[in-house]
């Protein structure tokens, strides 16, 4: 499965279920990788994903890379006194036995320097680097700007 996903690059015709596939590395499973349409390539894109850790050891997401963007970064949206900002997140904890979401209004991948505008239905790979488990690549599905997440039939794992 991992090899299949690694082989898939910037395809323009993603199957609707791409974001629903689960990839694993060590004790971590990664699924529901999705992004939103951008207006042009000048504006940053966004990357959301779910990670769960079924092991007994804490891990952490420490970086992302993708051919779709020159400067991908981990961010966290923080609202303090009603004011939203999104500082760089050096690392996102994935504690043992827990799951973590990069999701709207919280942690997210910020895709700066897009190589092309992201269009609905596109897909692109993102490689996640974990402190302990190493690297894993997921396919990310581009949904509409209004989307709240991929529509997966299974209720997650």
């Amino acid at each position, binding site marked *: 499965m991992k090899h299949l996903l690694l082989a898939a690059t910037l395809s323009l015709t993603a199957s609707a279920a791409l974001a629903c596939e689960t990839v694993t590395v060590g004790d971590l499973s990664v699924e529901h990788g999705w992004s939103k349409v951008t207006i042009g390539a000048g504006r940053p894109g966004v990357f959301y994903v779910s990670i769960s850790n079924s092991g007994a050891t804490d891990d952490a997401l420490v970086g992302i890379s993708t051919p779709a963007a020159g400067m991908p970064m981990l961010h966290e949206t923080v609202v303090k006194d009603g004011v939203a900002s999104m500082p760089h997140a050096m690392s996102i904890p994935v504690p043992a036995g827990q799951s973590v979401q990069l*999701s709207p209004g919280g942690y997210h991948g910020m895709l700066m320097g897009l190589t092309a505008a992201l269009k609905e239905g596109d897909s692109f790979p993102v490689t996640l680097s974990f402190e302990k488990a190493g690297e894993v690549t997921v396919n990310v599905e581009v949904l509409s700007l209004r989307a709240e997440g991929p529509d997966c039939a299974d209720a997650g794992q």
Partner: protein
Amino acid sequence: MLGVGAYRTRSRPALGAVLPVPISEMTWQLTDEKNQSVRPADWIDRPVMVFFGFTWCPDVCPTTLSDISLWLEELGAEADRLIVALISVDPERDTPDALAAYVGNFDPRILGLTGSADEVARAASEFRMTYRRVDKDDGDYTMDHTAGVFLFYPDGRFASIIDFHEDRRFAVPKIRRTLS
């Protein structure tokens, strides 16, 4: 499994915060996404919902506009008299055309307003909201900004704010209170 990460919990209200001035006393002049001039006086006798943001914003702004679109759909024709506007805090990049391309992705009742830096600053101060430019190393920049959604009664009085991390179930009842 237990989850950690992004949750929408109720945020603490800002105690002692100064309330926005009534729409009827506001003085800004902005331009909408169709290049039409908009003044607060145009909104008299209509309930009003305003959100500040910018189109380069990939997380908070589309999330809020998606939420607003869902609320408007839930309210249906009931919300047809509601003025709904995104006011850009990044007028340097957000031209009326940029806003048109952006708000076109959401409920058609949402207007996009921009204007001169001075007029945006005037609107921000009348809404008692804050925004600031944050420069990044590569010469690019982003904007920090008040993320709440402001609600006003038809007579222009400030009604309430829907906070970004507030439980979204409270939003539609809050909006409904401004409609009658």
